[in-house]
């Protein structure tokens, strides 16, 4: 233990190429480190994280019999694991390592202040050495991992992730809040650039997901509560009252009858008519409904908000099926899983709030998703593209790209690129030229971003097919009240002059945003979001599927705008990442547990009330009350330790002595040397 040992610290300073060495004097910091008490060796290297850099640490541990390592480099959030491994391979306990963040929190933020940055780096090293001198051997705690996973959201990303996990032999709960799986992709007509029918490639996947023996499909179900940690998440699901039961549920509930077989007799007699959200409100559905014929599971759902409980559906369903239950209520269920993948998808922004384009004011201005339904053979018009005002076939169709994307004007507009709108607008242009002889698409664009494999080639193809491209952000769309035609006003920035083009119909490539329920889900699972509300990955480049909460992974657009191939690829990545701890069967947790120093504990129990995890309890010991920690529940936040009035709680790796030593090192001893 450190207390009984003379500190023998090695300090290693990284140049990070010129990232650090270009903004402060590494040499000066190294010389300064040697003046600090307890420092036996100080060294510097161009890239400490490289193999030769790590070797320097390992060699120095042996050569100088070190018992503490300080690396001054980037952020511990990036390379603490790297250097801990080097420390361990070098023969020391890996928790005898401390990092000074002289890049992300120094050289990069003080690039033009050489002296200031150098002085700060010296302080950072001194602070790190002060902690390193008090570090001690710790043993990571192994916890078993539940051999099951959960995927939240059953769009194409969620389904792919669930199928991959299931095929890897892992029991997987696929949770979807809608009555069917399939997500946004099932609303699309064709997919770019191959132009294959979206349903044709998606529905087999839906069937696979629905039938897979390892997938437990939970449709019309929401996440209600999350407890636990990697390996041992305990998740409460709310199975919303669906109003019907499938055959399995009938058996389980011991109710006579064969259950819902999707015959649809009920919907025929239902008197309540509501817009179908799947058809973007352009087709009706009944209060008892399915979105479309390919839904999985093929089971009717009652929208109890609009149901008038007339009972006609139950009557026609009859005693043989007996599937309808108008008095059904929500049910809660708890499941245990080792890892979770979030794939909650996206919504279009409320584009009507961008007044200038007149969506919802001008009848013939529609969104890209509405276009998908209108051009789809199984859509509300049977695939006949007609304009909403009069059912006429539009011969001139304007496509407004970046409708709210790459737009810093605030409100509903989004500063980012929504990434797939260029490509689907090109596809839409192709589709109208293909379906309507003589029709002309006008594409109003700022840039065309055809970034994927065979995408640029697709762009050329649409150009050659005769689409008209006008570069400029559309300023305004006016409606001719007599014809309901639309006058699109913009500047052609290539010609440098204003243009206005009369179109029969306009399609807005609206920006996308996270779903409204992304926020409560994020908070329940304890992950961060980026500025725009998309779920935040653990590292944008090196860990794009992971989050900072161990055991929670991301797939698809919930992490940021993506097209189908990227979504599927990330889903496969997330499934692979999630399956690793599950197959290993156990994970190691950082042992930052609270410990009770019983001789100091007065048994007041204040800490017990502070702990958010119920990890602390008072027990009777030698005739008095003392606190006891249940390590399996303790997550190491230290809230108890920050509160204990007697200073009786010791937070491993973040002890009060270590923290005070850091404070003292900065404030009391600016010149180094003996303390």
């Amino acid at each position, binding site marked *: 233990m450190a207390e009984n040992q003379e500190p023998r610290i090695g300090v290693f300073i990284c140049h990070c190429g010129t990232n650090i060495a270009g903004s402060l004097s590494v040499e000066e910091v190294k010389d300064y480190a040697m003046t600090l008490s307890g420092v036996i060796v100080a060294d510097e290297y161009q890239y400490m994280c490289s193999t030769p850099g790590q070797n320097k640490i390992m060699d120095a541990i042996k050569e100088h019999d070190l018992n503490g390592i300080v690396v001054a480099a980037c*952020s*511990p*959030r*990036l390379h603490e694991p790297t250097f801990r491994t080097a420390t361990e391979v070098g023969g020391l306990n890996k928790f005898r390592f401390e990092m000074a*963040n002289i*890049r*992300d*929190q*120094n050289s*990069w*933020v*003080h*690039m*033009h*202040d050489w*002296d*200031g*940055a150098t*002085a*700060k780096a010296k*302080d*950072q090293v001194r*602070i790190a050495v002060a902690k390193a001198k008090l570090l001690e051997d710790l043993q990571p705690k192994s916890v078993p991992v539940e051999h099951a996973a959960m995927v939240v959201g059953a769009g194409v990303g969620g389904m792919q992730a669930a199928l991959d996990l299931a095929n890897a032999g892992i029991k997987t709960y696929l949770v979807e809040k809608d009555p069917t799986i399939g997500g946004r992709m099932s609303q699309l007509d064709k997919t770019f650039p191959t132009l294959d029918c979206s349903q044709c490639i998606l529905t087999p996947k839906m069937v696979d997901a629905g039938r897979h023996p390892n997938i437990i499909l939970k449709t019309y179900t929401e996440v209600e509560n999350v407890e636990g940690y990697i390996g041992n998440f305990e998740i409460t699901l709310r199975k919303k009252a669906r109003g019907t039961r499938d055959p399995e549920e009938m058996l389980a509930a011991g109710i006579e009858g064969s259950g819902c077989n999707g015959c649809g007799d009920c919907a025929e007699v239902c008197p309540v008519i509501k817009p179908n959200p799947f058809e973007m409100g352009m087709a009706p559905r009944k209060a008892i409904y399915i979105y479309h014929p390919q839904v999985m599971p093929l089971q009717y759902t009652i929208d109890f908000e609009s149901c008038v409980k007339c009972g006609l559906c139950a009557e026609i369903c009859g005693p043989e099926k007996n599937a309808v239950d108008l008095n059904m209520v929500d049910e809660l269920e708890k499941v245990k899983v080792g890892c979770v993948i979030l794939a909650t998808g996206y919504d279009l922004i409320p584009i009507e709030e961008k007044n200038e384009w007149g969506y919802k004011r001008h009848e013939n201005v529609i969104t890209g998703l509405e276009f998908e339904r209108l051009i789809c053979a199984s859509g509300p018009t049977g695939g006949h593209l007609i304009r909403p005002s009069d059912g006429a076939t539009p011969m001139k169709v304007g496509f407004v790209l970046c409708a709210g994307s790459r737009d810093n004007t605030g409100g509903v507009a989004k500063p980012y690129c929504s990434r797939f709108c260029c490509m689907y607008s090109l596809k839409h242009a192709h589709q109208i030229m293909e379906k309507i002889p003589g029709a002309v698409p006008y594409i109003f664009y700022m840039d065309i971003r055809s970034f994927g494999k065979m995408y640029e080639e697709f762009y050329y193809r649409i150009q050659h097919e005769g689409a008209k491209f006008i570069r400029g952000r559309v300023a305004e769309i006016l409606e001719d009240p007599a014809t309901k035609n639309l006058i699109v006003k913009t500047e052609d920035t290539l010609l440098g002059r204003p243009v206005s083009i009369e179109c029969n119909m306009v399609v807005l490539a609206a920006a996308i945003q996270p779903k409204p329920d992304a926020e409560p889900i994020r*908070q329940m699972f*304890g992950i*961060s*979001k*980026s*500025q725009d509300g998309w779920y*935040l990955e653990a590292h944008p480049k090196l860990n794009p599927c992971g989050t*900072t*909460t161990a055991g929670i992974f991301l797939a698809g657009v919930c992490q940021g705008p993506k097209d189908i191939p990227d979504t599927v690829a990330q889903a496969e990545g997330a499934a692979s990442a999630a399956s690793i701890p599950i197959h290993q069967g156990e994970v190691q947790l950082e042992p*930052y547990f609270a410990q009770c120093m019983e001789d100091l504990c007065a048994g007041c129990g204040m800490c017990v009330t*502070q702990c*958010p*995890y119920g990890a602390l309890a008072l027990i009777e010991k030698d005739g008095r009350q003392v606190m006891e920690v249940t390590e399996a529940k303790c*997550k*190491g*936040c*230290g*809230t108890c*330790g*920050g*509160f204990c009035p007697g*200073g009786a709680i010791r*937070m491993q790796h*973040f002890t*009060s002595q270590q*923290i*005070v030593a*850091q*404070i*003292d090192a*900065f*404030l*009391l001893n600016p010149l180094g040397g003996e303390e």
Partner: protein
Amino acid sequence: MSDGEWKPKIIAIICNWCSYAGADLAGGARIQYPPDIRAIRVMCTGRVDPLFILKAFQDGADGVLVSGCHFGDCHYLEGNYKCAKRMFLLKNVLKNIGLNDNRLRMTFVSASEGAKWGMVMEDVVKTVKELGPSPLAEKKN
């Protein structure tokens, strides 16, 4: 940097998940701010014992910043609420011992708010510079 200009000594205790990540993001985005603050990383602001802050002031700190996750976003559910409560009480203690309580600041900076971290740094340094050296620091010298 002009020579001879008084440089405040400010210590920041920041949580691993939000503010430390936000500070890293400020680095990634090369957001420039004054180099007068030294950060100490803890897992959660809930770990911050008021005694750490009193010790810092006793040592002569001109300012102390505690920064964590936004309310509702704490990696450990509610450590930031508990810290905020303590800081509120601690500010009263500071007032009672005759120290301007603006020398202690609590902020909430998320992992995606690199720009905000830069602004917090500017603002904290400005506030403390306006307050001048801590009377406790002056006593020590």
